[in-house]
């Protein structure tokens, strides 16, 4: 009888002062990292806490640090990240650990609000639909940045967030950029004032870790550069 191939899995347990714990998980074809975590919880250790919902890369809730890199675990195949059949799975960086693989995302989403992440309508339900040409430059800028699922991979990968905890971070600034390019939004000036600060777009060092690791292949670095351009233009006009 051939021995079943196994993965050597090391998972962070507890809070910030927790410890690694080792598990042996059966290796399966087309197995994702989320499958591995789920196997541990269902078959080896039901006390393991982790977060997931859709399992198909839409909800943005299953991001974890896998072999040192923040990734969306539901769409990360073990084949792609565990060449030697070893996995080290930790919670996302730069966010407080609730327990095991679950982090508290409050700070992350509060920063979306601080960056003016809410759409501010200028029309009422009695107005007609806004007509926005799909190939207009502003709409194209929105298209390039709009698919964010709020997984926090960029935030956990950003060096500046680690150094400067009040930095708004790539996701919040990317969101602000999409709204600055939305012709229907009525808070462009206020939002620009909220993001054109030392803790906003100017804190970005363009390391591009966010852009490299975004599972949706977005480029928050480019969005942040766009915000800098808008702010400089506004400041030179005396409008900021």
């Amino acid at each position, binding site marked *: 009888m051939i021995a079943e191939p196994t993965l050597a899995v090391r998972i962070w347990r507890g809070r910030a002062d927790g410890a690694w714990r080792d598990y042996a998980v059966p290796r399966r074809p087309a197995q994702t990292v989320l499958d591995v975590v789920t196997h541990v919880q269902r078959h080896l250790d039901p006390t393991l806490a982790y977060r997931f919902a859709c399992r198909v890369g839409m909800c943005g809730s299953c991001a974890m640090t896998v072999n040192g890199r923040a990734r969306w675990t539901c769409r990360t195949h073990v084949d792609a990240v565990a060449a030697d059949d070893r996995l080290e799975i930790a919670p996302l960086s730069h966010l407080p650990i609730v327990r095991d693989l679950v982090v508290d995302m409050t700070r992350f989403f509060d920063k979306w609000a601080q960056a003016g992440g809410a759409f501010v309508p200028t029309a009422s339900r009695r107005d007609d639909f806004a007509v926005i040409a799909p190939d207009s430059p502003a709409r194209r800028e929105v298209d390039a940045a709009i698919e964010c699922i709020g997984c926090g991979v960029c935030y956990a990968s950003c060096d500046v967030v680690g*150094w*400067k905890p009040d930095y708004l971070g790539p996701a919040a600034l990317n969101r602000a950029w999409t709204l600055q390019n939305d012709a229907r939004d009525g808070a462009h000036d206020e939002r620009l004032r909220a993001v*054109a600060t*030392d803790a906003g777009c100017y804190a970005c060092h363009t390391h591009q870790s966010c852009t490299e690791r975004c599972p949706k292949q977005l480029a928050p670095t480019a969005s942040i550069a766009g915000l*800098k351009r808008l*702010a*400089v233009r506004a*400041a030179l006009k005396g409008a900021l």
Partner: protein
Amino acid sequence: MTPARAATLRWLAQRASAAVLAVCVLVHLATILYATRQGLSGAAMLSRAHASFVWPAFYAIFVVAVAVHAPLGLRTILDEWSGLRGRAVDVLLAAFALVLLAGGLRAVAVVTL
């Protein structure tokens, strides 16, 4: 001035001074290489520096760019690496900028005028 406007002008000054410094540093290095390879004596360098308004003008621009760029960069480093920020830090950095400017311009005047 709003905080956003101040931050934007600081960022602009930092980038603009960096662009000036990129050119100045290259010219400065090329000048050093030329002077040392030609075996110019100190007296010969001084006489050439005195011969044209280009040298005092070039080095005055260089000094101004340094006096703008260095304190702004230091401000970011202090903020990110030590959490030091606020009015007291800004006043100290403004004083640092003045020291760089005064010392630099004095050196340029002594050597080129």
